[in-house]
């Protein structure tokens, strides 16, 4: 980034830029809400209009486990943001790592679920319910991976000393994004697993 071209960026600059980025991130999350709303809306319409019973039981235990994992990861993310704002570099690093690890656990559990489905011969094309299941969890998973990449980069940058109590936007913005990803799952879990 061209920050190096200037001598210093003062705290007021960082605060102002943080505001811009926060608004940008909220708008981006707004667009993501619309994206998932399309899928959820379609799923609800198809579910309610379907004549035959199309719900095949998913593993509720694994789903619940993943829910707990993600909620916890949101907690650790929030801790990372809070510590970063207080300039606690080491603690921030641990919190980021914990979030990353929990996200990894989520993906591994999801991977188990997918593998199990494929072993049983259940694919997205098998029936309309699984079509939606793989579509929704697939895109959610892509968003988790995106978040993980961001978290990894943040951990490296934090280690390098890029962040301090004035400048920590990327962590805060990733935090917002991560909470959104968690929120989508909180809707996904009941919609697909419970109802």
């Amino acid at each position, binding site marked *: *980034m*061209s920050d190096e*071209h*200037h*001598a*210093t*960026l*003062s705290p*007021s*600059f960082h605060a*102002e*830029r943080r*505001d*811009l*980025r926060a*608004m*940008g991130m909220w*708008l*981006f999350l*707004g*667009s*993501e809400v*619309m*994206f*998932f709303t*399309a*899928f959820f*809306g*379609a799923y609800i*319409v*198809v579910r309610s*209009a*379907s004549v035959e019973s*199309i719900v095949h039981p998913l593993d509720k235990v694994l789903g619940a486990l993943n829910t707990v994992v993600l909620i916890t990861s949101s907690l650790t993310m929030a801790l990372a943001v809070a510590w970063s704002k207080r300039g606690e570099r080491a603690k921030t690093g641990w919190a980021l790592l914990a979030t990353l690890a929990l996200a990894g656990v989520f993906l591994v559990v999801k991977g188990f679920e997918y593998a199990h489905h494929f072993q049983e011969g259940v*694919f*997205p*094309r*098998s*029936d*309309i319910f699984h*079509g*939606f299941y*793989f*579509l929704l969890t697939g*895109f959610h998973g892509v968003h988790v991976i995106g978040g993980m990449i961001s978290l990894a980069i943040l951990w490296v940058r934090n280690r390098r000393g890029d962040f301090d109590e004035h400048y920590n936007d990327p962590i805060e913005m990733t935090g917002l994004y991560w909470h959104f990803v968690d929120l989508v799952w909180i809707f996904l879990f009941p919609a697909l697993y419970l109802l």
Partner: protein
Amino acid sequence: MSTAPITRVADFYHPEPADFFHKYVWSYDHKVIAKQYMWTAFTFLILGGVLAMLLRWQIAYPNAPVPIIGPLLHDAFFFGADGSITPNGYLELATMHGLVMVFFVIIPLIVGAFGNYLIPLHIGSRDVAFPLLNALSYWLYLPAGLLMFSSFFVDKGAAAAGWTAYPPLSDAAGASEPMLGMNLVLAGIFLAGFSSILGGLNFLVTIVKLRAPGMTWSRLPLTTWAQFITAVFQVLATPMLAAAGAMLLFDRIAGTSFFIPTGLTVGSDLAANSGGGFPLLWQHIFWFYAHPAVYILILPSMGFASDILAAFSRKPVFGYRAMVISLASIMGLGFVVWGHHMFVSGMNPVMGMAFMVSTVFIALPSGVKVFNWLGTLWGGSIRLKPPMLYAISFVSMFIVGGLSGIFMAASPVDIYIHDTYYIIAHFHYVVFGATLFSVFAATTYWFPKMFGRMMNEKLSILHWGLTFLFFNLAFFPMHFLGEAGHMRRLATSTGYEFLNPLAPWNEFITLSAFALGMTQLLFMYNFIYSVFKGEKAPDNPWEASTLEWTIPNPVPVYNFKELPIVTRGPHEYSSPDTLPGDWLPQNAPARPADAPGAAPAGASH
């Protein structure tokens, strides 16, 4: 640049790059990015136009070999063995013409090019809120366009299910549907949509957060207001297209059946996908995006027209507040009218009734805007320069396009004219007659600022007159064809008795369309020649008052040496305090008559 600490975002800017790559290819400067969009979009405009010329040939002279190109390219692309256009080739042409024009020409031009160039200048900032994201938006758009373009070259050709891509035809089950071509197009649209969403949120943050001191919401040029509302549509509606496209891609590649109902049988083969889906699901999700998309196609051009009409009438826009409220109403209503594309789709007629009500009333804000444009002209001192000629034609064509929309809004009438040439006439009047004319207006108006030179005035007037004439000759008769029941997307109409008497009209339209296409060469020549050899332009050739005219040509990378302090509205032309001239820039000192050694009206610092 000083090395003192930077305390405000407004003071920050990326310095002038030294090498060619950072200057012209990967640039953070919104002005460079705008020009990248402009050149790319104009190139796609040529492509879209050529596609239209070819399909018009086929309609007028069915199965006749296309002169020169046909025999040359026989058996390739859309051409058959004798150089005529094949039935599937015709559908490719019609589909790609629509897709290219909507996603790769108009939106990139009015939002990507002009939005990018003007927003920071209009609000008095040095750049957009996220310059890196801005560069990324362009570099998503170009590959998207190339992906889309590459679909012509694959086996079985490009997408051919109409730009609206209704499944099951566009889905895996469509019997004559090409496979790879449509997938490439979908991928291209996905990327372009992503570019659009990022661009939209960039503009929203810029306009909300980076306005110069004194630039209140009620002093924004209407161009900026229009871009703001458009950006809301971009951010909230485009994801729906992404979602629909993803579901369609899943159907085509992963074998799901979101849009394929049980028992779908093509020929005598049951569809491979498992069924349980709904074709109308696509239509709902797609039109939920695509209707706001048509507002994305028109609102920025309404903004250009408002500002240009004011500048060349030398008086304020009539009813600025009403204009803003109209924009906001269109934004609100624009999300609840999508069903009017589906009146005859088999959708529940009760829903049809609801959509009819909202659709009829969305005509109201547009009507208010037309009256306000007329009011802007009324009592003015009208300077008929090329930007003004185009802007006046914009209003004139928008009236026709808007009025023809009322017929469609009345759903019983729509039963008859849906999927006929009436619809084609309507949207071409609004997208070509209105928006594209506004693009010509914006190009001739802001060319001096963008390139430091003037476009040739005589050539512009000639282009304007001929385009206006041929456009009306080509598209007005389509209303008649629609009244006669001539359906859309027909490779040839010779099979129907009731369409037979209309054949001469098809030929007339085609010939007018060819003339229209040829006329655009004038604009191309004028544009390209003037970029390099045009007469050097003064800083403010139009004596306009918005902020971009207060800075010198060429515009430096930091835009404003000192950020302006805005004291006036955007169109305070001919106000008493501008005497003896008839204008002052928006950042003129509050009481110019009192300032010692006050500069005469018209001088920039």
